């Protein structure tokens, strides 16, 4: 190959590369310019809507608002799918001036993405989703919704109280900053093919002298009896499945479901406060001698007995060291028909294979309660489309929309579904069970202090996991260790 040719090839290559670079820079500059143009805020004519608390219709007229796009940011999953496939098309049809853009990211990345966007003061998201456990992170960045026209009285009260309100220390007022979006509850799901079998019912009654109907169960001992029955009679390989995974922090929601029974039935600890010590939750009670934080109930008889019971429940499923049961694998495992049922979030029903889920019914946890797992939508204080965002939220929680959701948050929507005889009986019964369970949905850690100090959850989950896997065998010792770590962390936090 001649030198001249080589040189010309090299020059052409270099020239091409330089042209590519110039084009890239040009496109980048254009993109920045283009995306900045889209962020021009639209001033809106003040809404003249009047709101009626009993009204189920949104009253603000969108013609008062100029054409705009609002952005909703949440993690991917069933709730996002519901918005995308149902709510947004309906809303945009009713309010053609307002477009809704939905951005989703995986759950594992969502909270860090939202948190850093807030810390950077970004206006890219108008409406954001938060859970009761992450409420503490989000509240300071959300606008009050007390005068937004949303019909709060129709929303599931217990769940709404578990993260929808923020005590603003500056104003000294309780502000509503989130509207209930998803009403997931941790309940008991059972296979009606087994539980409605009269022969199995009779055999169980003969042996244990109480009904096999989970609705009648008053305590966790009865669940353990049922586990023992199904496994020892080789009806199923395992007992009721309950989450026991440490790596996904699943223990963090499974343990309180068991714990709450002991909490509620110990008047010394609960003192009649069914939803836990205000601002602290069910793991705290009374007043600590230091005065800065209350006593911790984990190493009391409440916590220790709950731990023992939890371990007994876990003994009727695969070892957590070999196959930890988690939120992710529970639907698949239930679908394999290896257990009489499971403790699960009602929203997981859609993830269970249909050939099995069609036999699943719901019941409250033994003792008639449930653990709430609500999610909320709030409006970012950096939003430049506040009125449009409020309109969207009003629309979202209205009964005519909620009736289309598999996890409605509107009481009216629930009642409409339950009374609709065209819906299969078992599905209506699931809604009925969820509505009943929601009325006593207190078994959560909620927005209390443990959700605010990240290491508390780590210490609790890891301590319990060490007990479940026999790394430590003394339950009192386990709870004492966890409690001491909590005390150290709280002292650091409040010092």
């Amino acid at each position, binding site marked *: 190959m001649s030198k001249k040719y*080589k*040189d010309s090839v*090299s020059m052409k290559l*270099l020239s091409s*590369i330089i042209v*590519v*670079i110039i084009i*890239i820079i040009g496109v*980048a500059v*254009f*993109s*920045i310019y283009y*995306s*900045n143009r889209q962020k021009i805020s639209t001033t809106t004519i003040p809404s003249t809507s009047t709101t009626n608390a009993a009204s189920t219709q949104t009253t603000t007229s969108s013609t008062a608002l100029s054409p705009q796009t609002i952005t909703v940011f949440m993690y991917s999953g069933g709730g996002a799918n519901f918005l995308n496939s149902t709510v947004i098309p309906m809303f945009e049809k009713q309010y053609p001036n307002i477009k809704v853009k939905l*951005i*989703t*990211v*995986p759950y*594992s990345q969502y*909270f*860090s*993405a939202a948190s*850093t*966007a807030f*810390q*950077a003061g*970004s206006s*890219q998201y108008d409406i954001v989703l938060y859970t009761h456990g*992450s409420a*503490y*992170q989000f509240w*300071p960045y959300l606008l009050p919704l007390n005068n937004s026209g949303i019909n709060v009285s129709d929303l599931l009260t217990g769940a709404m109280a578990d993260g929808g309100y923020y005590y603003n220390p500056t104003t000294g007022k309780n502000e509503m900053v989130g509207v209930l979006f998803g009403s997931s509850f941790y309940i008991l799901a059972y296979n009606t093919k087994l539980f409605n079998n009269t022969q199995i019912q009779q055999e169980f009654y003969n042996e244990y002298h109480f009904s096999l109907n989970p609705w009648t169960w008053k305590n966790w001992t009865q669940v353990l009896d049922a586990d023992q029955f199904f496994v020892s009679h080789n009806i199923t390989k395992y007992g009721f499945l309950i989450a026991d995974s*440490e*790596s996904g922090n699943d223990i963090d929601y499974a343990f309180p479901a068991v714990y709450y029974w002991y909490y509620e039935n110990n008047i010394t600890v609960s003192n009649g406060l069914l939803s836990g010590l205000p601002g602290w939750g069910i793991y705290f009670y009374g007043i600590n001698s230091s005065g800065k934080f209350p006593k911790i109930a984990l190493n009391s008889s409440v916590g220790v007995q709950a731990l023992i019971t939890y371990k007994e429940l876990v003994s009727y499923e695969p*070892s*957590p*060291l*070999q196959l*930890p049961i*988690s939120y*992710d*694998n*529970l*639907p*698949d*495992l239930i679908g394999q028909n290896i257990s009489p049922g499971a403790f699960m979030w009602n929203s997981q029903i859609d993830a269970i294979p249909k050939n099995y889920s069609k036999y699943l019914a719901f019941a409250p946890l033994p003792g008639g309660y449930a653990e709430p797992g609500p999610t909320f939508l709030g409006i970012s204080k950096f939003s430049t489309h506040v009125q449009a965002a409020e309109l969207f939220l009003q629309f979202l929680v209205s009964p005519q929309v909620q009736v289309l959701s598999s996890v409605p948050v509107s009481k009216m929507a629930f009642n409409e579904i339950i009374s609709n005889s065209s819906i299969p009986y078992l599905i209506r019964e699931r809604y009925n069970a969820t509505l009943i369970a929601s009325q006593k949905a207190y078994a959560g850690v909620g927005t209390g202090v443990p*959700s*605010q*100090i*990240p*290491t508390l959850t*780590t210490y609790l989950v*890891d301590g319990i*996991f*060490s007990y479940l*896997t026999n*790394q430590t065998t003394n339950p009192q010792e386990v709870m004492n260790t966890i409690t001491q770590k909590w005390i150290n962390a709280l002292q*650091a*936090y409040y*010092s």
Partner: protein
Amino acid sequence: MPYFIYIILLGIVPFATTFLLAGVGIRSIILVYKLYPIYQIIANTFIYTIATSVLATLIGLLAAIAIDSINNKTLQLIIAFLVMLPYTIPFTSAALIWSISFYGPYGWFTYLLGLKYDPLLLSSTAMQGVILVSVWGSIPISFLIIFSSLKSVPKEIKENALMDGMKKSEYYFKIALPLIGKAILIVFLLGFVFSLGAFDTPYILTGGGPLFSTTTLGLAVYTISFKSSLRAALSGGAFAAAILAIIATIPALIYVKVLKAQRVPFPSLNIRINDKIMMGLVAVFLGILIFFLDFPIYYMFLAAFRSPEMDFTTPPILIPIGITSSYFIQALKESIPYLISTVVVSLISPIISILLASPASYEISRGKNSWILPLSMYLYSLPVMAFIIPIYIFIAKINLLNTWWALIITMPLYGALYALWLMYNYFTLLPKSYDETAELFGIKNKFLKIMMPLSRPALFSTLLLLIIGAWHALFVPLVLTETPYNFSFPPKGAQTLSIFALLAIGDVSINWSLLAASAVVTALPVMILSLISITRVLKGAYSGGIKFI
């Protein structure tokens, strides 16, 4: 000049700003460090770093000696390929495969060791598991650098030694080892500084648990800054990054000093083993090593092309039966938006790196602005966490988060620093007579007209290595992106394949087939590229163009 401006803007300024951020919000920092077990985290970091760098260097060295001692060149090349195979797999894919290999009686690795539990679930064994995976991923590059260095020892030295009746073992441990001492030390120091900022492996395998037992400083930066529910956590994370930067400074400075040295004294070991026994030991060692390095890759393909029920049996099924391509095809379809982003970023950012670094490395090799080299090596050896928080804030402020531009602007930094080193080594080999001739004939732009064309092999090899590095990147895309490419214009969404593979761990339950298929999809394109670049390196310095030491 462009190179220098770039590393100031994307390297030095963010690095300095990290310290500034850490100085702000001092109360938040104190709180964070009271809540997190910082001493345990620092101890974990040192344990992980020392174990990984020592083991990877030692095994890499033994592998290099073992392979070099094989007389048959073709066999040498084949075995070298096999040792390099883990290098072709992105860390996320590797972690995926190891996470299912550790699965108690269902995972092949734990089954072979007779373990009935997943070691990653216990705080007493989780760190060992993480170190094992890290060493597995680090052996190839240690081997490659040391092997290249062994190859550059003049053939006559070996021939004369063996003709004089020396045993092979004597030659390697008494003569060759001291000659390649610099390479060994470089490998150890590089491994040390990279492990210091370790993020990918502990993040994917354990998330830092159980109970912080595998949380390293690098992971802590991410967890505290981006995952904590504490307010003003960025200050706390910046402080962790600052601690990491300070700790990394010492080995980084030693690394720069060693790099500049002509030779590094290295002990000569008097090991004399009969040649036949030595080759026997070599065969056994290489057999075990290749099984350890390559079986997980084989298993990744096996799991990707069969039904998940077959992955969940004990004893595990290790032979290819019940083959189906449905999970691979499903993973391929789901990966398309991530693949597009990865291709765009992995092609463009290395080109930018090369264009920035090549002229600078040439100038440095000719004695101009030589201080840029040690500065660059220092920046290269710092963990990316030392820069990322200010970069994140900057990218967020200019509304480029979750775009290709965010990655194209930021990712060339490490590529440029790496390319500077590689190209500098190459240009120092290039005879100065070319420069003299160009001056004699008054040729202007001699770099473009003469040096670049001559450097084609080196440029190409460097480009391949940078593309592979960009393909593997996880931390920067994880921080700067949120969603996959949405097929719109202007393009929005820039999550890469490494994040796609990560999603498989979080979202897939016991469907290991889909998980393994995601790992294969992520790894396959870059495996092919890696094989090409490895061949070039193994063929030798000039034709391959790459000289590490």
